[in-house]
């Protein structure tokens, strides 16, 4: 796996109230090709805004975002977004389109031939583990987990190099969420993607990400691999947050031991 920078955020800031407070405050971040990076933090820490800078769903007030050394401000938003997969909590499947049409939408916008779109849709249904018959169903006939699989398939349809995920599994039940999370990690590795995932669930970040960036009040307060951060950190907020998965694991282990001894 190479470690060349693919996405660079350079001193970006964003205020939603005319400059009194900052959602993102003079933040710089470099993301390497092939990594799965998790942005974590409490609500209002700026993680979602930071993620949306990358596909221009939000433009920064100051600073610059570059992909492959090209500044994204010079790329028309629609064109930029067709090259970047996007998965979010609301999923937002188009209710008037069948599953197949939902998955094939970006290739269609890009003007792919019909046969190629159909082949790609079939391939993606396999990839996310859904039966082919689902292509002709409408989204309202699917369960929550199935819909999010379609959401992932739609994000991957036009073979993007970059996937942005904003709380992708937040609305799912824990079992589905665990399954879908590890399934996505497999896809990420197999397809050589670069993924930026926003989550407030530290455990999910620890289990899936190569690198965790912790935000607070629009600034980065910690940045490292999950194991580094779990070993300890000078910032008390980071310590409290990163020790949680280990504490939970220890509690679970105790219970398991108790079961064995009893």
């Amino acid at each position, binding site marked *: 796996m190479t470690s060349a920078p693919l996405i660079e955020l350079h001193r970006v800031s964003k205020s939603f109230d005319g400059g009194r407070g900052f959602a993102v405050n003079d933040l710089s971040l470099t993301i390497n090709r092939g990594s799965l990076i998790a942005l974590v933090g409490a609500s209002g820490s700026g993680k979602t805004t930071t993620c949306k800078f990358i*596909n221009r*769903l939000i433009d920064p007030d100051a600073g610059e975002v570059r992909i492959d050394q090209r500044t994204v401000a010079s790329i028309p*938003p*629609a*064109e*930029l*977004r*067709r*090259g970047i997969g*996007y998965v*979010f909590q*609301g*999923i*937002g*499947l*188009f*209710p*008037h389109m069948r599953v197949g049409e939902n998955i094939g*939408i*970006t290739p269609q*916008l*890009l003007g792919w031939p019909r046969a190629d779109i159909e082949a790609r849709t079939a391939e993606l249904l396999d990839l996310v583990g859904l039966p082919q018959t689902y292509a002709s169903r409408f989204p309202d006939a699917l369960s929550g987990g199935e819909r999010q699989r379609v959401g992932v398939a*739609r994000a991957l349809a036009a073979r993007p190099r970059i996937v942005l995920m904003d709380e992708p599994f937040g609305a799912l039940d824990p079992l589905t969420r665990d399954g879908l999370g590890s399934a996505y990690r497999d896809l990420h590795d197999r397809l050589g993607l670069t993924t930026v995932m926003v989550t407030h669930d530290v455990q999910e970040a620890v289990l899936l990400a190569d690198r965790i960036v912790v935000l607070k009040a629009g600034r980065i307060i910690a940045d490292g691999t999950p194991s580094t951060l779990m070993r300890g950190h000078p910032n008390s907020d980071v310590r409290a947050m990163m020790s949680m998965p280990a504490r939970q694991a220890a509690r679970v282990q105790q219970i398991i031991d108790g079961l064995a001894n009893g």
Partner: protein
Amino acid sequence: MDERLASALRVLPDYLGQHVLLSASALAFGVVLSLPLALIAARRPRWRWPLLTLASAAQTIPGLALPALFYPRMLSLSALVKPALGLALPALGFLPALLALTLYSMLPILRNGITGLSGIDRAVIEAANGVGMTSWQRLVRVEAPLAAPVIMAGVRTSAVWTIGAATLATPVGQTSLGNYIFSGLQTENWISVLFGSVAAAALALVVDQLLGLVEAGAARRDHKRMLAGLAALAIGTAVVVAPLTAGKPATYVIGSKNFSEQFILSELISQRLQALGAGVERKDGLGSAVIFRALASGELDAYVDYSGTLWANVMGRHDTPSRELMLSELTRWMREQYGVTVLGSLGFENAYVLAMRRERAAALGVVSIPGLAPHTPQLTLGSDLEFLSRPEWAALKQAYGLAFRAERAFNPTFMYRAVQSGEVDVISAFSSDGRIAALDLAVLRDEKQAVPSYDAVVLLSPARAADPVLRRALEPLIGAIPVERMREANLTVDRDQDKASPAQAARFLAEALRLDQP
């Protein structure tokens, strides 16, 4: 079959076709104008309130007044446009009715458009942006299909309103199913009123059902159903409107106001023109304020008006000279100011007179208006819809010191009923009305000549002043109709039993007068 039903059916293709053409055009314009506005309002919430308020305001203007309000606007617009384009916009008929109805149709489409477009799930909008749609692609592929059922429901409401309101186009000279209703109300031909109402309601019902099919198709994403509904609407419109394009040689346009005498006289004029082989188009039931301007601007070729009406309303005069003096002054003024020809008086007056039941007058010992004046605080006056706001009423009140206990305005038909039943004591009758004799009413003498004379005069438009056919058809009518004959003819149309149509009454009048065929 009943003669009235048969004659209603004869004109149905024309009335229905015109009605459909008008409402379909208004609805189409309404949709085309409202949807972009709805889109703007959905994207920019600050536009929402002003747009909806304007559309609601248009909606609150009573339907009857809306087309009439457009008439003077159209006249001034036409005057503006004429030098620039070299053509006159028609201020009468289709165009003002279309504008008024378009405005009328917009509110439900606008409101549902805004609701539909701004009610789409935020997640779906974010997804549309996220997958790389431009704002146009998002509108066409996502927002429009998702808002379609709500928008169609608005179009459906609007269609029903528009078809109903199109019946009100008649007074501005646009033929519609309203012609049945307006002429029927005036001549007490209830079969005609009922026929017009049922036809308009049936049309609205059919269109509503077909649009319902389109709406259901949009909601269930069933394209076959949508296409079936749209195809049925398109075919239906084409079939009903097609006969109109066949076209008839409408050489002369004859107008009438909205009461029986006017219908009969315009029939009489039309029959005489047709006997000379000329084509005639009728514009019946025009409003009093509209009709003279329509003639002066050349949209009508001829109609019958009354000297006193023109004297007060058009010339703005308040004095009351003798009958002969008024006629000669009017003739001169009309030619100088408008180039309009006053061909002459038909020979009778249709003046405003005060009348009451003969035995009631006898009981009070009243034979003239001065005799009536002291009793007025105990009496109720019934009038037609315009009398109370006319200068003649002001003049009468002032000249004789009339102060009625109450004043009530009626449709003329109901006014006569009211005096007959004793609901009112005195009415503002018309001197040529057949019902004066039929109901045995006493006409009270206007001793001070407070009310000007109302000679029925034939007016010709500036362009037709010297038209030989028109003159050959109309000159024999001048001075030829005594008031008794006109009353008889009016009564055949106005009476309750054995009613005649205005066309029959016109033939009866021609025979009674022994008029030669022109």
